[in-house]
């Protein structure tokens, strides 16, 4: 039930609701409890109509690079 999906913020209205795009599907989410200030173009994880986390792009990329490096160099 704690399902959450990453989506990109398309717009934010005056009542603090955003339209997010999840791979073509658009949803309205409330930004009242998201953990950091967000803007159009940011990726957020949303759950039950609320954005709950701003994805740190650098952290996400760093993790993928780390895994790819381990695999590429066969450091098992």
């Amino acid at each position, binding site marked *: 039930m*704690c399902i959450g999906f990453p989506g990109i913020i398309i717009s934010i209205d005056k009542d603090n609701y955003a339209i997010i795009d999840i791979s073509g599907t658009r949803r309205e989410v*409330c930004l009242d409890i998201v953990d950091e200030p967000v803007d159009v173009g940011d990726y957020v994880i949303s*759950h039950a*109509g609320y954005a709950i986390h701003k*994805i740190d792009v650098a*952290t*996400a990329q760093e993790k993928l690079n780390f895994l790819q490096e381990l695999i590429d160099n066969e450091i098992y």
Partner: protein
Amino acid sequence: MKYIDEYRNPALVEGLLTKIENASRQISCPVTIMEICGSHTYAIGHFGIRKLLPESIRLVSGPGCPVCVTSTRDVDIALYLAGMNNVIFATFGDMLRVPGTGSDSLQKKRAAGADIRVVSSADECIALSQSNPQKEIIMMGIGFETTAPTIAATVDNCRRKGINNFSVFSVHKIVPPAIHALIADPLLKIDAFLCPGHVSTMIGSAAYQMIPDAGCAAVITGFEPVDILEGIWMIMEQIVSGRKEVAIQYSRGVKPEGNTKAMNFLQSIFRVADAEWRGLGTIPASGLVFRKEYEAFDTLTKFPVPDIKSTEIKGCGCGDILRGIKAPQDCPLFKKICTPMNPVGPCMVSSEGTCSTHYKYY
């Protein structure tokens, strides 16, 4: 799909499987890992993770599905509330078919005429309340720390808007006390926990310190195949090295300190109280009830509920399955009279219930 496809990369999956296999060869005993998040239960089944792992690694499902752990008594109270006159009862869809006493359910109540609406966010109740001023809107407040702050934020929003025909029947539960209970269960022998991703987005990592303190490994893990396998590999590394800690695999979704803004909402509106879990019994300080200042939004304060005699479903193994001491296949009803089309117990209802997942994928 950004932040999803990258974590389904077959090359990364194969690399991680090799790492897990190499680590498992360094350990003489089998390893039992429990996931305590319904979305993990679903993902492990959906992606066929069990079949990919070495035989010495056993994955068991714990009480990670909020719908499944809701007690029969709380389902019965929901059925009573939904049947009251002049009420619109709002609920997340997962709850509709969960059986209460005598196999009654919200779905059956709705078929009999009750005004029960499925919502995907508590926020939808604001518009429902405003467009139905003559009705009482009751939201079934179900879910763990991921969902409870969204309900708290909705309550706060209603208070600011002056809405007074909305209330929440809170059966919210919090995860760490359940882990405490599982660790203390003499029938369970768990070596490690795959800790829930989005609960941890909210509560952070410190809340799980009792897991390494009890000698078990703990890794907060995401929901894609690469996430789950990396989480398992990180667990194996902890077991091989003997250094137990709470590690975060799902770093794109979880900060060590969690989401303090959301938790402040939760804590300003709810306080912890004892709660009854299906299968685990009453766990101290594991539920969320309204603080006095917000009692105007508490369904149970607003509408007195009569004594209801609740009885558990005969023969249903959900209780032991939720504790991880039985597999669905051990239940005499599984796949015989209990199926996703005709669920007898709650674990067969929700798509992330252990029985439903086993029915579909094993």
